[in-house]
Every structure is written in structure tokens, then in C-alpha cells.
């Protein structure tokens, strides 16, 4: 279980993340939402140790993650960022194989190959496994990176805007896979999302940030409410119930209300 205690980040004098304390509930999908510049990605980067916090600490099973060896931590928490620029040419299978690095240190054994195979199956990538990443579309690449994280087989998976630049079909596909990871394999997923409807339909819990502070933290249905959303985004958002899903309508306030 990940607990965040009093985490802050400053760039110069500008406070980007301000005294954030949250608990990530195991076995759920938690979405971070909020306006641009609210500090969502920065918070996720600090939780995943990609960035140093200026104050506060992140605890994994009551232990400060800075005190945990890098190699050990990489078997428990994984992170996927938005952009993944590389200067090596890798095939999909080779990339997914890197997910086993924390266990095998680069020499894959039979068990590692089995895990890689499993991850490729999970992401439906077997047709593409020998293709090079730079020959793939954005959506296919994103799936390959998620397969790598699945092969890494950590309890907690942190994803920074994984739906960026993806079309509707691929976005839905990825969210469904994340849902399966939680429901079938008992993983914990933390995800930064821009589209509040994806957050509403697929996540169990939502943490809303604004100006670096947590302003809402709770169950999805409690947060996807017009009043709460008004507070988060400073705009009128109409929430409609559609087939048990709560859908936010915000495209044009003139169209709202019945």
C-alpha cells in the first residue's frame, strides 16, 4: 500500500505540489484528475521516485521509498510516463523483455519468457511482436509499453496520461485492460487522466487536484457530481446517468439542462 505524506514540490518559488497527503487504496483504479498545471504528473513522478520531493515522503508498506533499494522497488511499483523517447531500435518483444529486467538483470530465463508471452497475449500483441517500435502507430506503441509494465509484474502500476494521442477505440481498449488487471490480477492502478468521463466510467476512486492541492479524494460517484466538478474545474458540468455510467457533459453550457 502506498501512502503519501505531506509531499511538496517547488520550482523556484512556485509551488507545484502543495502538502499532498493521500492513501492509494490497494486493488483499485485511482484516477488523478484536475485542470492543466494542477500538479498531477508531478505528484505521480514523485510517488514513483522519478522526481525528488522537496518536503514530505512516500511510504510503501510503511517504509519510505527512498530507503528501499532501487532493484527491490522496481519489483513492486512500476511507472509509465507520457513520452518514451529512445535512441535504440527495439522490437516489441525485446521491449517487453526489458520489463523482466528487475528479476533477470538482462538474462531472461524460462519463467521470464513465459511472463513476456503472457503480457503480449494480454495486450493482444503477438501479431506485432517482431516489429520494430518505430514502425508502429502511436496506439500500438503505447500498448507495447503497457505490455512491458505488465511483464514487470508489479503490484502497483502508475500511468501518466496513457491515453494521450490515442483514438477512442484504443483508449477504451487500454482502459478495459487496466480494469482487467485490477479485477483479475488484483493490481493497484494509479492513472493521470484528462478525460473525466474515462475517470468516471473506469475508476474506483478519484483524487482531484487543483493548484497543487488535493481538493477532492473519494469514491468516483461522490466526485462525479456537478457541485464537486464545479469546484475542481471552475465550470458548469452537467452529469447524466447513462446505463449505470455517470457521464459529464461540458462541451457547451448552453446545451445543458433539460
Amino acid at each position: 500500500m502506498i501512502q503519501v505524506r505531506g509531499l511538496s514540490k517547488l520550482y523556484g518559488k512556485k509551488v507545484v505540489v502543495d502538502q499532498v497527503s493521500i492513501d492509494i487504496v490497494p486493488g483499485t483504479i485511482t484516477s488523478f484528475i484536475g485542470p492543466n498545471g494542477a500538479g498531477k504528473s508531478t505528484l505521480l513522478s514523485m510517488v514513483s521516485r522519478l522526481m525528488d520531493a522537496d518536503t514530505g515522503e512516500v511510504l510503501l508498506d510503511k517504509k519510505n521509498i527512498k530507503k528501499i533499494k532501487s532493484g527491490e522497488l522496481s519489483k513492486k511499483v512500476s511507472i509509465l510516463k507520457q513520452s518514451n523517447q529512445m535512441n535504440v531500435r527495439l522490437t516489441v518483444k525485446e521491449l517487453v523483455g526489458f520489463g523482466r529486467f528487475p528479476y533477470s538483470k538482462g538474462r531472461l530465463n524460462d519463467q521470464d519468457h513465459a511472463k513476456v508471452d503472457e503480457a503480449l497475449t494480454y495486450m493482444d500483441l503477438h501479431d506485432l511482436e517482431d516489429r520494430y517500435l518505430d514502425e508502429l502507430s502511436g496506439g500500438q506503441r503505447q500498448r507495447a509499453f503497457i505490455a512491458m509494465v505488465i511483464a514487470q509484474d508489479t503490484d502497483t502500476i502508475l500511468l501518466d496520461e496513457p491515453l494521450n494521442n490515442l483514438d477512442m477505440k484504443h483508449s477504451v481498449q487500454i482502459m478495459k485492460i487496466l480494469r482487467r488487471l485490477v479485477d483479475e490480477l488484483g493490481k493497484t492502478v494509479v492513472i493521470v487522466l484528462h478525460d473525466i468521463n474515462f475517470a468516471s466510467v473506469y475508476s474506483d476512486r478519484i483524487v482531484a487536484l487543483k493548484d497543487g492541492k488535493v481538493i477532492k479524494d473519494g469514491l468516483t460517484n461522490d466526485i462525479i457530481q456537478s457541485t464537486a466538478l464545479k469546484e475542481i474545474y471552475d465550470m458548469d458540468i452537467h452529469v447524466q446517468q447513462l446505463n449505470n455510467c455517470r457521464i459529464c457533459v461540458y462541451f457547451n453550457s448552453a446545451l445543458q439542462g433539460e
Partner: protein
Amino acid sequence: MRNSTKLIILLGLSFLFTGLYLFQDLNGSYDYALPRRGIKVLAMVITGCAIAYATVIFQTITHNRILTPSIMGLDALYLLLQTVLIFFLGSDHITIMNKQVNFVLSVAAMIIFALLLYRFLFNKGSQPIYFLLLIGIIVGTFFTSISTFLQVLIDPNEFSMVQDRMFASFNNVSTDLVWIALILTTIVILIGWRSTHFLDVLSLGRDQAINLGVPYESVVKKMLVISAVLIAISTALVGPITFFGLIVANLSYQFFKSFRHSILITGAMLMSIVALIGGQWVVERIFTFSTTLSVIINFIGGVYFIYLLLKESKSS
């Protein structure tokens, strides 16, 4: 062709050129010519391996395939040191005349400089690696400018001594130094070799490397120090030749098309052995010493560098 086959071919080629270089026209001169040629071969092997290794790890850390470790200003410091010594103490002073003293002095100066630079930068928290490179370029340019300034003022006879140091040469390396350099280089490469598997992951970028459990900061520091030490040793042994690393590293990437550094580094090392010994053979047998190896290297390297630049600009 499999990568292991390619490595065996390169190994065969390096043995072929070594044999050719050592034994052609030897005329039974086992006591005189053979040991002299042997020392040269050893110097070329050491320099080749050191530069290939330093360049590949430096490029992986900086995520840039057209950089060489010389961007950190080590060659510039070497030339500055030689110029300053000759300018103030004269070319007949012990620090210039005695090769051992000069070697120790040069290696020490370069390593201390690199450590100070890294220490200064890493103490201020985790700076992006490009900041370090920028400082390196500025300091290197500063060193070069001072050297040029002193070289303009210097006595012409003394200047010819400085000029001698400006180009790498394998023709008069000292035997003792070759052995010292061999031991140092081997130790440093062995220390670095234990982290080779981390390098594969580093080429995925910083974030992925940390995600996959690489102790990023410490590995990067270690690799920067190793590449600085190797460059310092090879530069003090034969002179500035880091441009050469750019060629072999990139040839190795193109030839092996692998992400495994154990293959890339071994390949680059073998290629530099083939290129240096083969090149020296060409210089001695075909050009009959009318040119030097470093002139040929700089010519071929320059052409290849332009090709790389054009290729990079096309791909981006």
C-alpha cells in the same frame, strides 16, 4: 549473419592485421624489430579499447550518438597542460622530456579536472546531463583559447614541440608507459564491465531506467568517471584521438543492430583494433610514413561525421 559470427570475423581480422603488422618483412629481427612492433601493437590495442569503451558508454549516458567524451574538455586540458609546461618551463624541462613524468602529470590533471567538474555539478542536486555537457564545452573552449594564445607567443622551435603533442602518434610510445597503461585500462574496464547490463536499460531513457530498478544517479556517475579515466590514459599515452571513438562506436551500432552493450562494446573495441593496427600498417607500408595515422583517422572520421549529421537531420 548472427552477431556472434560477426564478432568472430572481427576477431579474426584483428589477429590477421596484428600478425601482418608484427611479422611482415621481419627478416629474423626477433630481438630488435619484433619487441618494438609489439609495444606499438599493445599501445594501439590499449588506446583502441579504452576509446571505444569510453565513447560507447558516454553516448549511452548522454543519449546522443554524435558526441564523444572529448566534449568534456579533457583533450583541451591535455593540450593546455603541454602548452603551459613548454611555455613556462621550456621543452627541455623534465616534465616534457621525461615521458613517465609527463604521463603521470597529464593523467592526474585530467582525472582531477573531471572529478572536480562532476563533484561541483552533482553536489548541486541532480542536474540534467546536458547542463554538464554545456559546462564541459565552455571549459574546453576556454582551455583551447588559452592554449592558442600561448602558442602564438611561444618561440617557433618550442612551438614545434607543442605541435608534436597535438596529434596522436604511435611511433614513439615508451615501453614502461604501455605496461602501466595496460594495467590501469584493464582494471578500469573490468570495474565498468560489471555494470554493462545497466547500460542496456539506460538506453531506454532515464525514466525507464529508474522504473526498471537501475540506481540511475550512481551508475551515471560511475560511468562518467570511468570514461574520463580511460580518455585520460589514452590521451596521455598517444595524444588526442577521441574523434576516433565516434567512428568505431557508430560503426558498431550500424553493424550489430543490437541493444546489448556487451556486444556493442566488444564490437567497437575489435573494430578500433582492426582500424588502428590496419591503419598503422597502411601508413607504414603504403604511405611509407609520409603521413600519420591520426591524419587519416581525422579525414575518414570527418567524412563519416558529416554523413552521420546528414542522416540524423533526415531522420528527425
